[in-house]
């Protein structure tokens, strides 16, 4: 069973966020596919990639999402679900957004905070109206061969936000860390 290869060959883009004052060190574990910023509490980091519009990029983004979720301490099932959601977002970006256009790129950023894992995937396509997507669970749609990607993203993540770019669409996917319940 072949898993996506380690994304060590990713084209690294700049980190996307303003660095907080608590920045204490810069980590570079490029061998494991990450170049990012590690902060003092070691639970906060950011990394972003710029990738071409290909299925290979989809696989790299998926694997990076799974590794990031695991590093952030999410359990195996949750990390798998996050990776599946991010894969769907990347597929949308490459296939429906950029339509495999070699002149267009996707960007993916991964931010781990003490509260959540925040992943953004953006394309340079014509834009997406999330309200126009039919409900795949409706009886008239249940046997359709497509149209389940956004549904799965929403099913696996705690928050999903759409932002129109000029051009393109950015999806922000958020998975919260669950605070320990009293008595657990």
């Amino acid at each position: 069973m072949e898993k996506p290869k380690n994304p060590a060959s990713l084209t690294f883009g700049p980190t996307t966020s303003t660095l907080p004052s608590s920045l204490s060190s810069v980590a570079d574990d490029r061998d494991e596919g990450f170049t990012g910023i590690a902060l003092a509490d070691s639970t906060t980091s950011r990394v972003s990639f710029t990738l071409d519009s290909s299925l290979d990029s989809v696989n790299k983004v998926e694997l990076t999402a799974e590794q990031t979720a695991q590093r952030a301490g999410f359990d195996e099932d949750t990390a798998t679900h996050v990776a599946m959601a991010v894969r769907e977002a990347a597929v949308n970006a490459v296939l429906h957004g950029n339509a495999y256009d070699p002149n267009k790129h996707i960007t993916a950023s991964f931010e781990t905070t003490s509260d959540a894992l925040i992943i953004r995937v953006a394309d340079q396509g014509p834009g997406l109206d999330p309200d126009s997507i039919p409900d795949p669970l409706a009886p008239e749609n249940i046997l359709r061969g497509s149209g389940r990607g956004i549904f799965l993203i929403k099913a696996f993540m705690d928050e999903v936000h759409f932002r129109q770019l000029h051009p393109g669409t950015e999806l922000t996917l958020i998975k919260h860390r669950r605070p320990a319940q009293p008595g657990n």
Partner: protein
Amino acid sequence: MSMKVQTRQVDGVTILDLSGRITLGEGSITIRDAVRDVLAKGSNKILLNLAEVNYIDSSGIGELVSAFTTVKNAGGELKLLNLTKKVHDLLQITKLYTVFDVKDDEASAISSFTK
């Protein structure tokens, strides 16, 4: 991504033993071609053994649905066998678990096809 299909016949039913990931690209195309080949050879009783498939994305789900409707429209039956937990959960989330005839025992699956 690699995905493999092996075909065998048992009591008039064509079993496709799938392994790997059914995802956008090669995985989806492989399953589509395999089902078309079976139909082209005159068999329309198809059992997809997913025991070695532990990952399906939305495109893969779409291919399973398309295979189901294609075989049904050809007057045949397509059933699923040996779902892994991940695939089972995915079909439940998408409300497809009740659409497909899902089996977990090959012998009883074979005997459940219309004679």
